[in-house]
Each structure stands twice: as structure tokens, then as C-alpha cells.
């Protein structure tokens, strides 16, 4: 029942083979070893597993591998910045103290990334709306919203 799909994962073309009924979350974490994407609830409520699929932020725990098509483009936290060079959103999350325990951080950054790609100058309320599906239990969200707001007004390219 394994299925092979030609995906673009973090900018690289990849032929990925997995069980059609596997969750995309598990394919990312187990097959592709991209463990930056986290599982918090497994039912689409917490947003810790947020990734970007063809430009839209999605809960990777709610999509089955078999639902993907050849040519689908997935971006995870590993695809936007890393050890050598942080993405500006990652820089602002660090600087503003927007990450505490860090478990929601990758999903939160991906939701913010999807927002800024579409809407580079969001209002305060648009930011709140955009990450309303991502639960954080540590920060009270204030510093997360500040980090996204500062990144948006810094004129850096997302």
C-alpha cells in the first residue's frame, strides 16, 4: 500500500515513498527525519504541526500522505533558516523572547511566514487572526505578536 509521490520539500525535489494512510506529519518526522515539525494534539487543534503546503498554512496532522499530489510543495521550519543563517522571523522570535519552551515555535513561525508571504504589512489584528490557530501555553502571545509585528515593519524580505 506504499505510495510514491514526487514532492518539493523545502525547495528540493524528492520522490517520497510512504503508506497512503500515513499522516503528512509522520512522513515529515519519520520518513524524512524533519523533526522540527511537532505534534501537540494530533487533531488539528494546537497548530504545533503547522507547515506550508502550496503556499497555505496547514495542520500536517490532518492531511494524509495519499491526499498529496505530484509537484506539491511543502515548506517546514527546516526550510526557512537554519544553523548557518536564521530567517528574519527566527531572529525576531529570539530577540523578542517569543520562544519559551519552544514546542509551539516552529508551527508558530510557519503560520507567521505564510501570513507575511501573502500580506507583508499586516495590522496587529491581522497578525492575531493569522496565528489564532496556534496554541502557546508559555508566553501569553504578547511577545510572539511583537516579534511578527517587528519583522513585518523591518523591511526585510521574507
Amino acid at each position, binding site marked *: 500500500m506504499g505510495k510514491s509521490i514526487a514532492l518539493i520539500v523545502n525547495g528540493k525535489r524528492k520522490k517520497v515513498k510512504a503508506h497512503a494512510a500515513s499522516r503528512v506529519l509522520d512522513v515529515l*518526522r519519520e520518513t524524512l527525519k*524533519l*523533526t*522540527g*515539525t*511537532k*505534534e*501537540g*494534539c*494530533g*487533531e488539528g*487543534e*494546537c497548530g*504545533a504541526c503547522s507547515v506550508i503546503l502550496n503556499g497555505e498554512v496547514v495542520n500536517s496532522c490532518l492531511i494524509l500522505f495519499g491526499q498529496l499530489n505530484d509537484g506539491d510543495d511543502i515548506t*517546514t*521550519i*527546516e526550510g526557512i*533558516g*537554519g*544553523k548557518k543563517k*536564521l530567517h528574519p522571523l*527566527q531572529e525576531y*522570535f*529570539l*530577540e*523578542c*523572547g517569543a*520562544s*519559551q*519552551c*519552544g*514546542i*509551539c*515555535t*516552529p508551527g508558530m*513561525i510557519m503560520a507567521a511566514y505564510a501570513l507575511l508571504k501573502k500580506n507583508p504589512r499586516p495590522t496587529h489584528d491581522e*497578525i*492575531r*487572526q493569522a*496565528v*489564532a*490557530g496556534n*496554541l*502557546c*501555553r*508559555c*508566553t*501569553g*502571545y*504578547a*511577545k*510572539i*505578536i511583537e516579534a511578527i509585528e517587528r519583522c513585518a515593519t523591518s523591511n526585510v524580505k521574507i
Partner: protein
Amino acid sequence: MGVVGQNAVRLDGREKVTGRALYVDDIVMPGMWHGVAVRTTIPSGKVLSVVFDPRFNWKKVVVADRHDIPGRNVVTMIEEDMPLLVHDEIRHIGEAIVLIAAPTKKMAEDARRHVEIRYEEWQPVLTIEDSKAKKRVIHGSDNVISRYKIDKGDVSAGFKDSDAIVEGVYRTGAQEQAYIEPQGIIASPGKGGGVDLVGSMQCPFYILKALERLLGMSETKLSVKQATVGGAFGGKEDYPSVLAGYASVLALKAKRPVKMIYDRNEDMNVTTKRHPSVVRHRTGVKKNGMLVAMDIGIELDAGAYTTLTPVVLSRGFLHSAGPYRCPNVRIAGAAFATNAPPNGAFRGFGAPQTLFAVEAHMDKIAEEIGMSPLELRRINCLKVGDEMATGQILKESVGALECLEKAAAASGFERKWRASLPLCKGESEGIEVRSTLPDPPLQREGTVRGIGISLFMHGGGFTGSGEAKMKGKAGIRLERDGKLTVLTGCTEMGQGAHTVLPQIVAECLGVPLSCVRVETPDTSKVPDSGPTVASRVTMVIGKVLCVCAEEMKRRLSEAAGRDHGDFRSLAGSFLKKRGPLTIIEAYEPTPGIHWDDTTYHGDAYAAYSWGCDVAEVEVDKDTFEIKVERMYMAHDVGRAVNPQMVEGQIEGGTLQALGWALMEDNRYDGGKLLNNRFQTYIIPTTMDTPFLELITVEHPFSHGPLGAKGVGELPHDGAAPAVVNAIANATGIRISEIPATPERLFEECKKKHFRSS
């Protein structure tokens, strides 16, 4: 050097923002299997038989029961009344009976579905009232898990001397910690028949102690290491000892690493919650607002086993009279056993419950004597030199009044409060503090607005003689390359301990922060600093590290034969001559602190952090929805070692407390949790977050590291009463039970019409 007081970027931050930090579920070991527990589905009774469905191929998996436990079948916490696996009597839904390990999680879950348990069912005890009435005795001789009492002055005489006596009963519900990373542990067979653990935990040494007993092994055969922890809030204080027990028993039997990760539903079903509470107040007060007598009764629902309940009750008990001066105080507290999963540690540890009661009650008193809530608090607020209910005389570091005045001034409390209560006559606005919040949005049509205040404190470190008994250890190692390593069992769980402790060390030694790192908390590598709980890490272990730093400087100077020169040159010459140097010190209690465990008299805490919260709410007159528009939080933390992280604690803790105040409500039916998922157990999102205005107040504590006190739990203490007091200001309805849901407000409203409509 100026490292303390700076917003140093968290040292574990880069790993976290890039997704490279390894949480337990990210760790894979060769040959690793996955474990699950088969659990009871009834709250009370006994197991008649366990039936393994012959249609499942049991040869593919490993099954362990209580006979596979090498040592004693107990999970050691304060008492040893909780078995790891059900032996005879079932005390709550979700107790483990049998454990299964399989090559994949899917197969382990499949196996679990093929086990059937047959029971004899007994009538469960599900409420404090039933437990107290001894409907059935399920614990000891009277269902009481612990009990405390103190009596100061003459309460009866105090009531006689009062102009008014005000009574109230206050209730709070269970609250789920809702860390976003569920519980998880990996156990592996170690050297010499031992076990090595890695997982999500607050207190590696608690697990070590529990495993020694459970596995019948000396600690030399065991190691417990913390993985990156995705939030804990008390929920990973005691429970990981249970999960570590399951995984270890399976790993020993399967002879391979076994990973156990709970999914969200299982995590919510079986792990600890905040204790539900009932607190009764009877207060005598003079016409001028002076408190004369307080009689307080506290009852907690402990759940099925002792776990940490005696200390939770103790802390709640010791905070129950609030930050007020009163000559005659009687407090009685008891925790009762019920057939619910055990309740345990959650940020605040009993104090949020009793502070909710006293702070909601203060507003009721103010109303009855016709005084503003601010003025009543101002008159009775504790100051240096005052005596608390335990006889503790406050010697220093009491910022309560400054917090009160600053929060009131920043929020314009008196003016706004009077606007909702036009009959009350004027008080002064106090000192001037300008708020930096943007203008509030225009009031929506069909709503009423109100403002509420609360004043509170939180004792730093263990209660009473706890720290003196614990003697928490920590150390600093001067490495060969001249850098420094902090050695502590205290864990980083997001609160920032592994940034703040290096900041303290860097400051004390006069080196840049980049020269200091923290060793991973691993029981085989670091000293036992005591658990990462009780707002104690910065204040207590930070202080131990200051002492270590002084000792290191002394040793380096002694070796160099000079007491001048900077740390780097002294360290350089020491390393050349003698090599690396490790200094480990233990906590020495604050001089002049006395506590008597038997009479509960004396200095309950070496120092208190103080806070004042003001909430502004908007209530919809048709739907009864309650929206918190703004919160003002003035908190006295002694000294903010890392101001940004202090803000992070206050913002996060306040939002958790708002969740508890307004929406978080564990519902049970016959001992079964009904809302075991984020779809039904609602926690605040960005859309529920009000504007938060922080005012940091610093009244240094002379025995704290550079003046610092605890901040971790304080923010959970004040938001709930401020919100219900604001609802009362808006609607005239006093909510005495939280969460203050629209349904509850509607019920209260049916009894009383909106004043403003």
C-alpha cells in the same frame, strides 16, 4: 559586568527557533519499541480478571504486569500509597493494570484493544462533600489526606469587636496544565542491569528516587536525563515518575529501549490537574475598613492518592489570608480523597485557589461597608514590620503597597471603578503612572464595562523548613579552555532557568555571558539541586551559585597568592598550574529564619514576591460573554535578572490564570473526564488575549542572588479574582465560582437583573 538586569537572549533559543532542539519524541534509538498502558475504565472496584484475546498474536509483543516489577510496586512521592500497576483495589479511571511494548506504536495500540478487564464495581466517591461525609472510606480512616490548622490571637473576641461580619464561599475547578508537548519518556537497559532514562520532566532526581524503590536498584545503576521540555507548569513535576516506571519495567522485560509518548487524550485523562477547592471566609471588619478577625476554612479535592497534596494544601493554607494584616486569624485546611485521578502540582500550587477566595471576598467586604476595594486593600496591606498569620514578622522586601498603588494609578482604577458605581464617594488616584497601552476600543453596543483589582503574594522556595532540609546543591566548573559550566539538576522548561542562572554566574565572576554554559540535567552528571518547582530556582539555586562563585574566586586568588586581578587572568594561571576546578555548594538557609513544622508557626517563606492585578472587562448583556480588554500587572520580583524573561513569565502566567478564570473547566461524569481534548478543553488563543500592561517593581531581597526573588508562580495568583471583581463592577453580580463562564453568569443573572439595564 552588567549581565544581570540585561535582556540576554535565551541560550537554548537558536535550537528552538530552528526546530533543531530535541524533545523526547524527536529521539530515536536503535532497536527502540513503543509502550502503552492498559487502563481501568471504572473509578472504584477491583479487578476480577484480565483476558488476552487469543485472536491477537501476543508473541509479537512484550506484556508486563505487576509481577514484572523488580522492586516494590509503588511510585514514591511524599507517601508510598500509589501503586505503579493496580494490585487489588481500583481507585480511579485510568490506572494502569498491564503494560505492552511493541515494535511500532500502532501495533502496541492494536494489542491494547485486545485486552479485556473484568471488574467488580463499587460505588465511587466523587465529590469533596461525599468524601467528607465518609460515604465510603477510601483513604485511611476518614478520607483525609492531610490537614492543617493555625489559630492566631483570639478570633471570637475579634468578631465581637467588629462593626460588620462578612461571609462568603468560593469555589474553583480543576485545571489542566495543557503543556503543548505531551508527557513522554524513553527507558533503555543500561550497564550492569540498570536503566537509563531520557524524557520530558521537571525533576530528574524525583524520578531517580522513585526508580530506586520501584526497580530495587541503587542509584549507581540508574541515570535520568532531561530532554528539551515542551512546557510543564507543574504537570511534569510528579507524574513523570509514573511514566518512567512504566517505561523502565517494559525496557527491562523487552531488553531494549522503550519509548512511551502520550497522545493528548491520554495525557489529559490520566495526568494530574490543579486541585478543585472550596474556601469559606468569615471576616470581622471595622467601619474604617480595618480587618479584625478572619476565619478561613479550606477544602481540596485530592483525587485518589496522596501524591503532592499535603504540600499543595500547605501552600494554599499559608496564602489564604492574603497580603493583609489582621490580629486574629484562624485557618483550617483539609484535603479529601476521591475516586478521581490524583490532582497535583500546577503553577501556584494551592495559592491561586485560596488567593482567589480571599481576593473575591475582599471586594464583598468593601461593598458591605461601603468602601472602595482599593482603599480597603490600602488600609490593610502588609508592610515591613507587620505580622502574618503564622507569626512571621516581615523584615524586608515587601513591595505590596507599591504594586497596589502603581497598578491602580496606571489603570486609573478609582475613576473607572466609580464610573461603574456612581454612589461611591471619592478617593485619591494615588501616584501617577502613565499607561503605555493604546486607547481601548470603543465599547461595543449592548455591553457593560467594569474594572476589578486583586492584591496577592507568593512565597519563594519551599514552605517552612523545606529548603533547610533539602540543602539543594549546585556547582560551577572551570573548564580547561577557561569557560565555565553551571552544574545543576534544575531544569529548563521554557521559563529561562538555563539563561538566568548563567547570567547570575557571569555577573558574580565578572565574565561575559558567552563564557558560561549549562550542563544537561542528568543525574549522573549534576548535583541534586532539588526539584524545579516552587519559584525556587532563581532565588534559591541562583543564591547557591553566587556562593559557588565567591568560593571559586577565593580558591583562584589563594592559588595565585593575590586577591587582585581579573577573573580571566586568575583562572588562566590556575588552569596552567592545576587544571580544571569544580566547586559545589549547598543551600544555607537565610539567617534568622525559624519555622516549626508541628505548630505551623514562624517564617513560612524566606521571602515573598508581591503583585497587584487590575482587569478591565466588557460583558455582553445578551450573550453574557465576558471579554477581558486589558490587564495591568504590577509585580515585585526583588530584582529582574532578565527583565524580558520576567515579562514572559508574567504575561504567560497571567493568560493561564485568565483561562482558569473564564473558560478552562474539566468536566467529569462518574469519575470520567469528559473534555480530554483541545476541542472541548478550551485554553486561551491570541484572540482571547487582552492588552497586557506590565509594571515591574523591585524591592530587593538581601539573601536572594543580587536581590532576586521568585516570579514563576506569582502571575497565576491574581488574574482570576481581578476578573470576577471586574464582572461584579460591570454587572453587580458577584461570581463566587470559577470559571466564570457565560452560562454561570447567566444563572446568577436570573437571580438578579443587570443593574445597568
